[in-house]
């Protein structure tokens, strides 16, 4: 029990990390699109928990609202709309490279293990205080992020709004019935 309390954050990290990876594997391997979407949702929520562990509370809330709430609903809408129930394994692209990929994966796994071992030995400095500070004053994480966003990154923020506008126009154009018909070479009614 003492051990559990002393290492609670580490245990929580490993648990959440394993669940996130499991969800990610599910996204890539599951055949049913709805099951894959739910696995993706699980990964999003686990990543939100990891954000909280790194004192990014505002981003965790954004992650849940935008990803889990917005993007996932959009995905589920489209999956229901196109009525594809089996994504199928099919003939897999690049399957000839599988042995090479497994070798590369093993090498990468070894490198990750060494990295974690070395990283565990190093004293982990942290900037937990800076996550909630403006100047020298302690405020909330949301306030601090907002301060940096609007004071230092106002121009990128405005540019991103243009990107969103372009994406919206693009989605409307792609969604039009005329677009698909024109692609098929059929006559488009004016």
């Amino acid at each position: 029990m003492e051990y559990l309390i002393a290492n609670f954050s580490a245990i929580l990290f490993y648990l959440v990390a394993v669940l996130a990876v499991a969800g990610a594997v599910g996204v890539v391997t599951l055949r049913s699109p709805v099951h894959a979407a739910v696995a993706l949702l699980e990964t999003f929520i686990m990543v939100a928990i990891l954000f909280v562990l790194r004192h990014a509370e505002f981003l965790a809330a954004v992650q849940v609202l935008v990803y889990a709430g917005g993007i996932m609903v959009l995905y589920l809408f489209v999956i229901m709309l196109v009525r594809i129930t089996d994504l199928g394994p099919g003939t897999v692209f690049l399957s000839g490279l599988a042995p090479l990929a497994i070798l590369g994966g093993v090498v990468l796994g070894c490198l990750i293990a060494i990295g974690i071992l070395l990283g565990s030995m190093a004293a982990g400095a942290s900037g937990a205080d800076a996550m909630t500070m403006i100047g020298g004053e302690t405020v909330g994480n949301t306030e601090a992020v907002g301060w940096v966003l609007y004071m230092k990154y106002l121009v990128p923020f405005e540019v991103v709004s243009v990107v969103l506008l372009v994406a919206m126009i693009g989605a409307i154009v792609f969604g039009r019935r005329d677009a698909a018909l024109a692609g098929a070479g059929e006559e488009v009614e004016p």
Partner: protein
Amino acid sequence: MIGATHYVALSLILMCIGLVGVMVRRNFITVLMSLELMFNAVNLNLIAFSFRLGDLTGQVLAIFVITIAAAEAAIGLGLIIALVRLKDTVALEEADEMGG
């Protein structure tokens, strides 16, 4: 003690899984979902280093990444609907009009 290394390792694993999904699966829906996984891996990395360096810039960049991911999802799902209208399938090898 959980440090930035653990987060970078997890981020790397998620990125690799997403990359495999994009490369080997041949239906559009799984490819888009794998892209979302890769965006999440990037965000995890940004957050880990933001905490490690005590600098909020990483969190602000993560907000921009989330915005771009939302835009990508909107465009990608629009493309799925157009592809299904045109070909009645989400298989990517059916979309070969440009001879690729």
